[in-house]
């Protein structure tokens, strides 16, 4: 993807996120979480969008409500980091060349982001 396209995509994603984040149950993303969202879409989209092979596997194992990582409210940052570096079930581990430690930390923060107080427990 060209840099211009990256920027355009990032803008769309941030905008889409802002819509979500402005909803009833989510706080706006922090800078780290925004970077995590970018990195998630750069490195995890292959399998973890709707209809992706990872989403299908998660749905089968944990139920359809837990298929989409971005929609989950029960993910812990340390668990995300460990899953990526160790692999989990049929998901291969990702190296620090493919996803750097800084990117992974941001992805983990993004996926483990806390809901707004009104949404109750996650």
């Amino acid at each position, binding site marked *: *993807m*060209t840099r211009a*396209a990256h920027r355009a995509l990032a803008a769309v994603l941030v905008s889409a996120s802002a819509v979500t984040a402005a909803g009833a149950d989510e706080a706006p993303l922090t800078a780290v979480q925004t970077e995590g969202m970018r990195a998630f879409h750069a490195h995890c989209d*292959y*399998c973890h969008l709707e*209809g*992706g*092979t990872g989403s*299908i*596997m998660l749905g*089968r194992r944990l139920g359809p409500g837990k298929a989409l990582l971005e929609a989950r409210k029960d993910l812990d940052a340390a668990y995300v980091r460990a899953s990526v*570096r*160790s*692999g989990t*079930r*049929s*998901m*291969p*581990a*990702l*190296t*620090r*060349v*493919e996803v750097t430690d800084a990117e992974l930390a941001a992805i983990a923060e993004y996926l483990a982001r806390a809901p707004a107080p009104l949404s109750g427990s996650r």
Partner: protein
Amino acid sequence: MKLVLPSTVSAQAFDQALNRFAGIVGSEWVLATDQDRDTYLDAYALGDGSDHVAAAAVAPQTVDEVQAIVRIANELKIPLWPTARGKNLGYGAAAPRLSGTVVLDLGRMNRILEVDPKFAYCVVEPGVGFFDLYNHLRDEKIALWMSVPGNAWGSVVGNALERGIGYTPYGDNTSKICGMEVVLPTAELVRTGMGAMAATRSWQHYAYGFGPGWDQMFVQSNLGIVTKMGLWLMPEPEATLRVRVNLPQPEDIRWAIDALARLRLDNVIENNMVFGNYLHDAAVLSQRDEWYQGEGAIPDSVSARIMERYGIGWWSFMITLYGQQDVVDARARIVRRAIEPQLKQTLKFDAWRRGDPIEQSGAGIPSVLPLQIVNWRGGRGGHIGFSPVMPPDGRLALEQFHRMQARFEEYGHDYYTSFTMGQRHISNVNIIVYDRDNKAMTDSARALFKALIADSARAGYGEYRTHLDFMDDVAHSFDFNHHMLMRLNETVKDALDPNGILAPGKNGIWPRAFRGIGA
């Protein structure tokens, strides 16, 4: 994983190498923790993957850095295992053949250096993935199509170098290589084809150059590190027509392969076709325990239920026709004449014309959905592929099908196969799926694989590509004149790589330094 070094490498030399590698690429790109070693294990290994453990990884970003690393490796006798994106899943992924080898991870060399829309080619570095190139073509509105393999997570260059395939008329990916830049095992840089002329203007226009052509020497080999590759892309056609065909009976393979082979030979059908059994669909759409919880291969009664549920045949295949509208219409008439009388059905093609949604076309669109099959048995799933090459003959295909199916059933595995049709050959891809944590299952998968190698060799069929675990076995099956090909490979290996530092054991080729101790 704890550090394990080959017997030829001292801990002192290894530490010295890592320090000097860090001086080249920066310490953040020398990866040598226990966790780093884990990330380079084969994610789909038959078991824990501890037979193929990297000692470390080093990740250069430039050709100069690659050369500098190779010079240090020669000086200190450190074996290196190049990998592009490490997604050679089913064949060992990024893991080295010889434990203690340092992975040369080329994932950071990920530039798309050139795309020529007029003459339909690209020049890419090894870290460029299929998704990267696809997105680039789409974003830049370049009307060129890619040939994409079933699992498209990996590298364009890596796939072509492993003789991977896609499913468009450009699907024989290795044959579309046109010019490479290669770091030799002694660190010199060479360009192949017309690129050997410094001022060339035709590197990606003509593959052969002048004198001997060396490109194939760097394919499935350990004789060089490819740092740039020219690859021809397919001009977007005006139209495609597609139809999926289901065949109800196992024995239908005989007439269908004969009919399709003729259409492939005549180039009426121009692309590699996957002629697969019902498990292709079932293993993506479901898991085994939804159908059957018993031991052994799934019985015929269960197979029948699967086919009925999904409305599929015992075999199915997709015919795709490419070209100008008049051409594809003419091709469709020829296909109908060849298929319909025996199929006893009318083929109903889905039409795509330029400008329609690309998903409806016969274009190669990257996806990793086929990886779903590793979840067929549940648990920590993995798969391995046994893929002998055979003539595209209906009688031979029927015999091969019966022979392979019997072996799968004997070893208690579900028979997953495709007879993927090239122009003059079939790659008979048989996939064994297992739960990596079930030792009985992985043991039987390994035993099955060895039996399949022997069976196919007796029938006169050798594998086109294989997993790390079986490279020596498959290489050994190429046995004409007392394995003269291997002796030639070893002679070339020793001449080009006197210190034996590049990918020892790759495709069964061991350098002198490791011969007899590596395997």
